[in-house]
């Protein structure tokens, strides 16, 4: 099918999907379009623990969709080798909280390979990982390690918040010439639904989305926090406060232009993420806004984040750790009342 024909087909057929179904659909399209695309990880052949790769082995065979031995470093390293050799690997980490054994491959190899070979061996590869809390998962299963990965030059990080974006961004990630980490909010997998074209389409990496317009305060968020922030914004609207919710979609590359426009308009910033506050991605956002936009600020930047503690292994304590609409609302009040 030509690109134009594909676009037309994509526009014609639209289905209501959950986010995990949209991810599954993106993977199907990617595998269908390019023979070089391979999908692998722990239990991926059988659909994966969240069923994101459901039925794909049936459709594309065990050569292209397969289980690996259990090792995150091995899965990352295998993807690097396949990428060097010209394949298009999509690797799944079962949970982003299992990324730690793979950090050496990410830091020492994935981020550096293009420069180490002066562009001769770029790694076009995608790493998908379910991340974040909100579903009462066991210890380590709810971590948000995007900040750790964002500290590595050479990789991109995409975190969708809607089914439409999940599919379009994932397909853009597959086409991208650089290694892309794609974090999928576990909480959003089945809690959000939306209209998704069944064909191929892409949402460009590095373009933020204004999830809700407003001119009193800017809330910067991504992934699982977007619905929480929208809820807080609805509550604020009832009290006469217009909150602009900016869904960053990707944190590397960062769409600082959109952030800048919003901050210039509102003069007040709340940054929201699930990861611990110290050295979380909010620290980078806050620093850049302070460096480049301080004269537009009417109040100090406020961060609403996880605490400087591990994501609680005690599921009954999860509600105290993961930001909710009430905490975001308190953050909004704080920057407005300053």
């Amino acid at each position: 099918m030509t690109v134009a024909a594909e676009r037309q087909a994509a526009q014609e057929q639209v289905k209501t999907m959950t986010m995990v179904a949209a991810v599954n659909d993106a993977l199907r399209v990617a595998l269908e379009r390019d023979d070089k695309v391979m999908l692998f990880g722990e239990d991926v052949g059988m659909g994966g623990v969240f069923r994101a790769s459901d039925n794909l082995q049936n459709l594309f065979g065990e050569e292209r969709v397969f289980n690996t031995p259990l090792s995150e470093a091995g899965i990352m390293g295998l993807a690097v080798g396949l990428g060097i050799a010209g394949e298009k690997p999509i690797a799944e980490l079962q949970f982003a909280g299992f990324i730690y054994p793979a950090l050496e491959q990410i830091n020492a190899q994935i981020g550096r390979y293009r420069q180490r070979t002066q562009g001769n061996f770029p790694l076009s590869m995608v790493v998908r990982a379910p991340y974040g809390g909100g579903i009462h998962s066991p210890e380590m299963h709810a971590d948000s390690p995007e900040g750790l990965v964002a500290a590595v030059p050479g990789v991109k990080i995409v975190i969708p918040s809607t089914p439409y974006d999940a599919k379009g961004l994932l397909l853009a990630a597959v086409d991208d010439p650089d290694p892309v980490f794609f974090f999928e909010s576990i909480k959003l997998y089945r809690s959000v639904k939306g209209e998704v074209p069944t064909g191929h389409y892409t949402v460009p990496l590095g373009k933020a989305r204004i999830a809700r317009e407003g001119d009193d305060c800017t809330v910067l968020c991504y992934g699982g926090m977007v619905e929480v922030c929208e809820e807080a914004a609805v509550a604020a609207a009832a009290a006469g406060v217009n909150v602009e919710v900016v869904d960053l979609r990707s944190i590397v590359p960062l769409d600082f232009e959109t952030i800048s426009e919003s901050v210039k308009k509102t003069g007040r910033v709340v940054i929201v993420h699930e990861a611990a506050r110290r050295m979380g991605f909010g620290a980078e956002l806050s620093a850049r806004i302070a460096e480049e936009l301080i004269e537009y600020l009417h109040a100090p930047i406020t961060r609403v984040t996880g605490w400087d503690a591990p994501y609680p292994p005690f599921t009954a304590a999860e509600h105290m750790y993961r930001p909710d609409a009430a905490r975001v609302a308190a953050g909004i009040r704080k920057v407005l009342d300053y």
Partner: protein
Amino acid sequence: MTAALTLPPDPRLEGTLSVLSPSGELLRPDLVPGDEILLKLYTGMRRARVFDDRAMVLQRQGKLGVYPCFGGMEATQVGAALALQDGDWVLPTYRGTALAMMRGMTLAQILLAWRGHPAGYQVDPKLHILPFYIPIANQIPHTAGIALAEKRRGTGLLAMAFIGDGGTSEGDFHVGVNFAGAFCAPAIFVIENNGWAISTPTSVQTAAKNLASRAEGYGMPGIRVDGNDVLAMYHVTLEAAERARRGEGPTLIEAITYRILPHTSSDDPKRYRQETEADAWRGRDPGMRLRAYLESRGMWSEEQEQDVMKGMEAEIKAAMLEADQAAPIEPEALLEHIYAEPLAEMKDQLAEIRALEALK
């Protein structure tokens, strides 16, 4: 040569395959390759050794950065390299200069790489020689991935990685060899067991009797070979390569050799080991061994030796001139090739570096 005859047996070599004795006597007539290969193996080792000797001098003169020398270990890399075909992939360690030379990386590129110049990282991708791996053992899972790609494409090509004895203690070694075994991927893993990981002897790395024995746990053959015997090394690698190409999966080769020189130009081995140990291994020199055999067959003369030496000296001189002419490193080099297209903030940072450099 006669000194080698009186060498005490080394327990590290127990059970390894040898084709030639340390003094060059033929032990396995059935495993001797053709004359052309014999000469290639010898000249490959000789050239590598001349380069290594000269590189250490250049480092002392401040013309190279830290340099990881390999003199005395060249048989392992040269024998393995010659057993491969064009298109096969090799993943060297930082001590892989002989391997890189054999696979077509130019001397100027090698010199530039050890000067930390970007041009030394600009190697023709078609050669399938990947950059010297500085982080320990990261290349092992990559080898599994590349080998899996070749298997999937049905090319008959393979991937061969080197690693030191110390590197086998890293998680990535286990992970990568296990993946290759599980996927029945066409891979060869060569452990260059040179006895020392800087100051740590192999006996501190593992309680295992030897490193090749681990192969059984990964479901593949484990071969122990005299790594200073280039004919033995060539033979076992060729067998492993044929096995890989037949679709029978990977092989783990433990080549027993010895690092008679320091770990790098920055290391002083006198701090941690007796030089008598190194002296015994000087008597097992791989070049002397093959030369004695070639001379016994009338295939090599002092004149030919001098030709190789002089030719190599001239090549190194020319390579140094070429390396000296490499363009100076511009600020772009820091931020280039990190992404296909630089990110917006990187463009700002490049402007900052340029401005700072202009002030100097």
